Each structure stands twice: as structure tokens, then as C-alpha cells.
């Protein structure tokens, strides 16, 4: 589904993504685990084409097609989409309209179902605006609902747990697993080893490189032992 080969991208003369290789299979939940500043969000921008990020080396292939030169819209129409770490506010855009944009030709019942999947009551939220009257956690859940509505081939989730309260987290994780069951591949990016427990495979990212790949249990254990205690934040040392 998604193949990344020797990907490089830098900022101010420093490589943020440094020769990264990875592959996400169809329907797979693939976790990327990394501390702050290790290149996780940069990777999402490079795949989605957002923030004007363009690789300085290497290739990103989706279903065999190189994404170089494609706009965000073109990538989205191929089936790639992104839930942002901090979803934007769009004054005057109602939740219902946002979900209808995401789920082309969606009827109201389908829109309601997407909200219910992330634990938001349609009667309360459908007519709300996606503006500052919603909390960060609410916007995060609406962002997830919009991805569920879009039913992408590849969903990139940047820190889907950040700002979400503890009781709501299982709903978010269930909706991710449901997306996978329905055939979507999921790139699950987080610094929280609890979140990647639902992944099929997990890689640890540091300094823009994959350090190890394994089961959620293996990588979480390794992450806790090596990354959370590491004084060289984003400056990997040979282990």
C-alpha cells in the first residue's frame, strides 16, 4: 500500500528525516513511536504533501505510484488522508457539513454514525461550528470522525490521543481498529506506547530514522528502556 524508500528531508541544513525506509500493508495498523522532535510530524507532512514539505531524497510510493509532484488534493483523491495533531478551527463550518465533505454523498444517518463512533452525540454536535467553542479534545474526535467518514485507503493519524480525555480514548482506538477492519491502512503516529498496542507492527523513530520494528510489546518495551530515559533527545547514539 505505502512504501517509503530512503526518504530524506531537512531543515536549516539538518536532516530531520534521514534515510527512512518503511512499508505499510493493506488493512495494516502500523505504529510509529517516537519522542518529541524525532521527525514524526515531518513524516506525516511528507506523505500528505502538506506544509509545503517535499522530500530532498528518496521516494514515497502509494499503490506503486510515486507521490512526488502530486498536490494534497490529488493524494486525497488517491485515498490518502490525514488527521492533524492539532485540528484547525474553521469558523462557520458546521460539523455536519465537514463530515459531508469528508464522506462524499453521505446521508445524515451515515454522518451521525461517524460521530457516534467517536463518542459524540449527533443531536449535540451536528449543528455545532468547528470553531473555538469546541474544546481541543472535541475537535480531535471530530477530526477522527471525518476520517471515518472519508474511509481512506491510508489514514495517517498524528497523535490521535493528544487532548483526548481518558474515558474517550478507547472510542478513538476502537474507531481506528474499525477503519482497519473495513480495509483502511492506518499509519498511527504517537509518543504513547499504550496507543500502539492496537497496531499490527510498530517502529521506533529517532533522528528521522527507524531504529527498530517489531510487535507492539517488543517495541514498547524497547522504547521505554531506551527512548524515554535517553538524554540525547533526537540525537541518536549507537546502542
Amino acid at each position: 500500500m505505502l512504501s517509503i524508500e530512503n526518504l530524506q528531508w531537512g531543515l536549516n541544513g539538518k536532516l530531520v528525516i534521514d534515510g527512512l525506509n518503511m512499508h505499510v500493508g493493506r488493512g495494516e495498523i502500523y505504529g510509529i513511536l517516537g519522542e518529541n522532535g524525532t521527525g514524526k510530524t515531518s513524516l506525516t507532512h511528507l506523505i500528505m504533501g502538506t506544509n509545503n514539505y517535499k522530500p530532498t531524497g528518496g521516494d514515497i510510493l502509494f499503490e506503486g505510484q510515486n507521490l512526488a509532484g502530486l498536490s494534497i488534493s490529488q493524494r486525497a483523491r488517491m485515498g490518502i488522508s490525514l488527521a492533524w495533531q492539532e485540528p484547525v478551527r474553521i469558523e462557520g463550518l458546521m460539523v455536519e457539513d465537514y463530515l459531508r465533505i469528508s464522506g462524499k454523498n453521505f446521508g445524515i444517518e451515515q454522518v451521525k454514525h461517524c460521530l457516534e463512533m467517536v463518542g459524540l452525540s449527533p443531536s449535540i454536535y451536528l449543528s455545532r461550528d468547528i470553531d473555538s467553542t469546541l474544546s481541543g479534545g472535541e475537535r480531535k474526535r471530530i477530526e477522527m470522525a471525518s476520517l471515518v467518514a472519508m474511509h481512506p485507503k491510508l489514514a495517517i493519524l498524528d497523535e490521535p490521543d493528544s487532548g483526548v480525555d481518558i474515558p474517550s480514548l478507547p472510542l478513538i482506538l476502537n474507531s481506528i481498529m474499525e477503519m482497519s477492519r473495513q480495509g483502511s491502512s492506518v499509519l498511527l503516529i504517537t509518543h504513547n506506547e499504550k496507543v500502539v498496542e492496537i497496531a499490527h507492527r510498530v517502529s521506533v523513530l529517532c533522528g528521522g530514522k527507524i531504529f527498530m520494528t517489531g510487535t507492539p510489546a517488543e517495541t514498547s518495551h524497547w522504547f521505554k528502556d531506551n527512548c524515554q530515559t535517553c538524554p540525547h533527545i533526537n540525537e541518536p547514539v549507537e546502542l
Partner: protein
Amino acid sequence: MIYSVEKEYQGMLDAYEKAGGDSNSLKTEGMAKLIVHENKVLSADEVPGVRLKFKPKENGIIAELRVEEGVKVKNPIHLCFGILPSEGLQDITFRVDVLSGAEVKVVAHCIFPNAVHVIHKMDAVINIGENAIFSYNETHYHGDSGGIEVIPKAKVILAEKAFYKNTFSLVQGCVGKLDFDYDIYSGANSVAEMVAKIYGKQDDYIKINEKVNLNGENARSLIKTRIVLRDRARAEVIGETQGNAPYARGHVDCTELVNGTEAVAKAIPVVSVTNDKAKITHEAAIGSIDRRQVETLMARGLDENEAVDVIVKGLLR
């Protein structure tokens, strides 16, 4: 083109319908309404407790709306002003008295679909009595030529515990030249809310000057302006609030989006306090359309122009 009265009436309804309005609301029995083309009153209806008086003057009319004490008007009062030919002047002198305890909502439509050299002026004095509620929602439908000047001016006086909300919307067609000037005097415990939503295009020039004088204790106000500019359109927004009484609270909130390199937006929030227990705040944001908003919608499959359109419509909704 010369219009007969019947043709004028039908023409106004057609233009209203074409602009997206529901002309049935102007034909429904049992609703107060006033339809004015140039200086001719084409239709006028009162309901119990609502008095609508009018007389023509050169190039316009003098109108009076009076809602009697304690009357709660069930259906909105519809006002429709317009000029159908490409040239003309419509000069409205308007007095509104909403007496104590009355409640009324006015829906006003101003229709100028063919304007090339048209001036639409309104000078209003609005008195809102104690505990009265007055909501005035004005929507303009203009053609695409931009050959129109709109000059609404009003003095609004709020008695104790009065509630006043004014919504002015000009997002269809070209604005032309707008010179909007409202002055509000707020009594104790009154609430005033002014909302303006305008979409400037081509060579439109928009000037908004809104001033709220919070003169009564615990008076509250909000001035909210949303403007989007493209092409060579220009806008200048002055939102002024004076806190002159204890516990008066006011807020000025102006957002102007500029889409393109030639449009020019200017915002001047003015806040002043003459009482040490009053508090006035303001926020003004001027800039291009947020790139992250655009990218979020593009990541849902919209192209860039569609994404910008959704953002603009949302802001002006």
C-alpha cells in the same frame, strides 16, 4: 425602462426570489410588511400592535415603525427596499419605536440587481424601550456591476434592559461602495450586538464605522465584523466602544481575510473607558486565508479553490 406598479411589485418579488429569497414571505397574509421600490410603497401591511406609517418624499420615503408596549410580535416583520432599473436614488428616512416590553424581529431585504448608478441611503433613529427586544436582520442582494452606493446611518437608543441585535449581510454580488455608520447609546443593563458580514470583490470599497456608548451601569455590547476581500477590494473597519458606566462590558471582534495580492484590509478597533469599573476588550485579525484550514479541506479531497470557497462561506454564514 419604466415599470408599472404591478410590474414593479412582481419585479421586486422576482428579483428577491432570484437572489435566493422566498417571495412567499412577502406575500403571506397576517404578517406585517413594507415593500418599497424607489419612492413608491408597493405593499404595506400591519398586524395588531404594529403600526407602519409612511409617506413619499422626493427620491424616497419617510417610514415609521412602532411596536406598542408589551406586544410580542409572533412573525417577523418583512421590509423590502430596492431599485430595479440601472439608475436611481432611494433615500429612506426611518424611525423605529419599540415600546417597553415589546418584542419584534425585522427581516429586511435590499435588492439592487441591475444597479449601474444607484444610491441607497437610509437614515434611521431607533428607540428601544425598557425590557424591549428588537432584532434587525438586513440582507443585501446586489448585481455584479458594483455600480451602487449603500449609505446606512443609524442612531440607536437603548433604554434600561433593552436588547438590540443588528445583523448586516452583503455577500451576494458586488458591494459597490458601502458607508455604514451606526451610533448606539446603551442604557443600564441593556445588550447591544452588531454583526456585519461582507464579501468585497472587484473594486468594492467598504467603510464601516460602528460606535457603542455604554452609558448605563452593567450595559453590554459586542461588535463583530467578518469581511472577506478579493480582487482590488478595500475595507476600513472602525469599531469603537466606550465604557462610561460601572460594570459596563464591551468587546470588539473583527476578522478580515484577504484573498489575493491587490485587496487591502484595514481595521481600527477603538476602546476607551471613562469609568474605572468598566472593561472593554478587542481583537482584530487581518490576513490571508489560513493555509492549514485550506490544507485540511484539501486532505478531504477538495481542490484549493473549493477549499477556499468553503472557508469564505463559513466565515460569512
